[in-house]
């Protein structure tokens, strides 16, 4: 299976600041995604990270708030900008790998004070 490393694993941030989350995969993957899991809730897709082009955002998510980069086939970043307490969530990256399998990273636990 693909090995996905997410950094940081957790962070506590102040309101109004930004945090960049990194997702590194040990092999080249065609598709990468970013999800959010709010406290006690299920996962919601934020965007598809496209290699070499702008990310594709789902309804309710915008680039100004969640800018995403994907410079190559093994790496992506998600930035949570101008944070508020409502952004406190687990953020997970996901990749399509091998025989139509979708794997998830271990997530980044974000708390905003």
């Amino acid at each position, binding site marked *: 299976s693909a090995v996905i490393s997410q950094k940081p694993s957790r962070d506590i941030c102040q309101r109004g600041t930004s945090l960049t989350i990194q997702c590194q995969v040990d092999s080249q993957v065609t*598709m990468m*995604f970013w999800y959010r899991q709010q406290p006690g*809730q*299920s*996962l*919601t*897709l934020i965007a*598809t990270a496209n290699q070499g082009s702008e990310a594709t955002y*789902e309804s309710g998510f915008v680039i100004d708030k969640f800018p995403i980069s994907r410079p190559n086939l093994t790496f992506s970043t998600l930035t949570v900008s101008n944070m508020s307490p409502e952004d406190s969530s687990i953020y*997970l990256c*996901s990749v*399509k790998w091998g025989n*139509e*399998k*979708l*794997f*998830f*990273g*271990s*997530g980044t636990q974000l708390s905003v004070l």
Partner: protein
Amino acid sequence: AQSVTQPDIHITVSEGASLELRCNYSYGATPYLFWYVQSPGQGLQLLLKYFSGDTLVQGIKGFEAEFKRSQSSFNLRKPSVHWSDAAEYFCAVGAVDYKLSFGAGTTVTVRA
């Protein structure tokens, strides 16, 4: 639009007993269906997936799921539960673009 319903928020089962978690989906075409497990403080682990073919799918950790198109269901089963199966289970539906919609999750508690 695709959606997933997991009717059971919480299930308690005795160790050694069988387990069945329900999942109903809504999708216009043939769906891609997944079951994931999330243990406390952990990421999501893929248990099994269904895209086509045999409607009974075997996964890891002794889990299996059955796709029933007529009932729009993809229920997860395990014949004998171990204490380590206590976790939250998510059913998800997607398509060829692999964008998943997740159910609300079912928390499984295993009692000795």
